[in-house]
């Protein structure tokens, strides 16, 4: 494999990691916004408790993706920055408000006395919830825009049609899909980290979100075929089809496991589902970073820099992965089955 393809694969892996880890943090915010029923406050504090120690580390995967993009594929980063100027700014608005509101709520003076009930805490809680709903939709729309085909780069100049690429039907569908997936991930994880009636709450939410993702898939399939035939044929290609098939199988398995209350299995299957479907999309999209003008090979940066990225990967990951494992073992150990509570 050429260096640029390897770096592209690493970038895709980082996108998958961001989706699987940080996606659930966004999902937590979604269920915070839609907390309901007699255990509303317990739901919220469970979510805050689950996210607290890990959300900042999970967020770094996004920075990692951006850095890889502008280091290894500078023209692609430049083109996306111009074409997606507005949605990227909105994404940033969402990211900034979500992160700030989460800690501001946690440290609001009122929340210390009566958890979640203070005025300041309530206000920041609302901001946190709203930003958590909007941001994944926008991120999904931006992801869809690189496949939609209406983001053109001709002679190094970015051209967009009358409808901005992030508002193309395919992009809107990807946005909705991202929202449902984040909600599903979070609900499945939270069902694993709770017990009793609270677990039933999150199981019900997972079933709702799971149904929504299935319904959206059914809607998106004909759209893909009509609007993005290159992606459709890519997904059915020998390269991507096995990965996508595993993803679909895992999706069905996670739904079945949820129904049978086999929560550990449901979580493993959900992770496999999201990872395989996203990776399948990336493989189907290859060699394009932005269809149809920007390819991995065409946008590849200086060979020395690409080598630097690849050489530093083993030592970097050698530090990063054990640290991440330690973080999750300490805070999620009893839920991961690594350590008894």
């Amino acid at each position, binding site marked *: 494999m050429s260096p640029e393809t390897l770096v592209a694969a690493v970038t895709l892996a980082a996108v998958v990691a961001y989706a699987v880890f940080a996606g659930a943090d966004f999902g937590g915010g979604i269920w915070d916004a839609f907390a309901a029923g007699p255990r509303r406050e317990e739901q919220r504090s469970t979510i805050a408790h689950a996210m607290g120690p890990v959300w900042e580390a999970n967020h770094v995967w996004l920075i990692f993706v951006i850095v890889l993009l502008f280091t290894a594929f500078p023209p692609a980063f430049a083109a996306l920055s111009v074409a997606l100027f507005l949605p990227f700014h909105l994404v940033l608005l969402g990211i900034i408000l979500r992160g700030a509101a989460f800690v*501001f709520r946690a440290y609001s003076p009122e929340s210390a006395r009566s958890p979640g009930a203070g005025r300041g805490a309530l206000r920041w809680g609302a901001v946190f919830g709203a930003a958590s709903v909007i941001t994944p939709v926008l991120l999904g729309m931006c992801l869809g825009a690189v496949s939609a085909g209406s983001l053109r780069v001709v002679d190094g100049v970015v051209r967009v049609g009358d409808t901005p690429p992030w508002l193309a039907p395919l992009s809107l569908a990807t946005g909705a899909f991202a929202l449902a997936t984040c909600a599903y991930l979070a609900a499945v994880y939270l069902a694993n980290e709770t017990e009793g009636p609270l677990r039933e709450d999150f199981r019900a939410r997972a079933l709702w979100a799971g149904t929504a993702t299935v319904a959206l898939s059914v809607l998106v399939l004909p759209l893909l075929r009509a609007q993005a035939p290159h992606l459709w044929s890519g997904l059915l290609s020998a390269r991507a089809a096995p990965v996508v098939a595993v993803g679909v199988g895992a999706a069905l398995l996670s739904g079945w496991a949820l129904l049978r209350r086999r929560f550990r299995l449901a979580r493993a299957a959900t992770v496999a589902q999201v990872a395989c479907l996203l990776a399948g999309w990336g493989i189907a999209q290859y060699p394009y970073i932005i269809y149809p003008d920007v390819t991995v090979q065409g946008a590849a940066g200086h060979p020395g820099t690409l080598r630097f990225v690849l050489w530093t990967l083993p030592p970097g990951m050698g530090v990063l992965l054990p640290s991440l494992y330690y973080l999750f073992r300490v805070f999620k150990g009893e839920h991961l089955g690594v350590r008894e509570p």
Partner: protein
Amino acid sequence: MDTLTAARAQMEVSLAFHMVFAALGIGMPLLMVMAEGLWLRTGREHYRQLAKKWAKATALTFAVGAVSGTALSFELGLLWPRFMEFAGGIFGSAFALEGYAFFVEAIFLGLYLYGWERLSPRAHWLAGVAVATSGMLSGVLVVAANAWMQTPAGFRMVDGAAVDVSPFAPFLAPSWFQMSLHSTLSCYVATGFAVAGVYAVGMLRGRRDVYHRSALTLAMSLATVTALLQPLSGDLSAKNVAEHQPAKLAAMEAHFETARGVPLLVGGIPDEATGEVRWALRIPRMLSVLAYGDPDAEVRGLNDFPVDERPNVLITHLAFQVMVGCGFALIGLGLWYWWARRRGPGAEGRLLLAAVVAGSPLGFLALQAGWIVTEVGRQPWVVYGVMRTADGVTPVGEVPATLFGFSVLYLGLGVALAYLLRRLATGAPPGTAAGRGGLHVS
């Protein structure tokens, strides 16, 4: 407002905001680790309470720093896509390494903040050490990227394109060491004096308990040591600027005509039209000495550079005066404090405490002013001598709108955060201040 002005303004607003939290993110973990280390060694409870209080402040400021830093990584492209198309593939190596350092920082901060009960005291302290170390490293690595913009290296330009790009390009920039030393120290100076001010306020209000006094001692230790080192690192930086960015040095010193035996200007208002500086104090031959170590050395003036390659003299010179002035004022404050402390803790007078309060924002003022010197002094270049800022800007026309939006957003967040930190700093935790802690005084 044209796109270039708006893009520069949005970058300034975003960086000025982020920089405060980046500096606290480097300085606060060190204070935290110092306090917890003292607790491990002495077992005195108030040190643990201090570490916990500072951890809370770190939690608030780190989160804001992380998300505003994310915004910057996007804004590099959103505002300067042509610059990033050229430079991303060259100085990106620095960001790639910084990514790992920042990752480690975020991971161990999570362990530190939420791990008080779950980790052994030693493991918890070590998590703090990892945060402090990786935070400092991540700053040093980001500065490599900026140093490369100041003193580009590791590539050749052929027909307007970079060729023979070294994988280590940002680390070959000849100003990296000087800049990262100066900026890392400035983070500790700024954090140290800012924290000292908070506890000086408490002591002025009569809370002269062991909790407040220890906090003041720790913060002033860090602040004074680093403030004393700062002129030495500044001297290295100035010599480096003289060698590699002579136009910037000329603007910093408002030095208009190339000459030998050039005086150092202290203060003064430069007039770019006439090339004169009014109301400045002149120290004969000092600039020649400081820049080249020779009282007769020639120092290039702005007249040596084409008009369209000169930075804004007024802003660069004034910002430089503010930075140096704040720096020396803080050195004086630090020395005064330790002179007053020679008879042991608790000897600080009201006047000294009031001075510590008054001096507490000066470190951040110096930090911001120093950054203005670096960045405005580099203009009109975004990559010094290689690419002009105007050639790197986005073709998108909506920048004034996003500038307005981000300014409002950051203003709002700044106010909210100031309120929360103010609430956090309301005295010692119950049970440590006058109670148990007080026993140690007698």
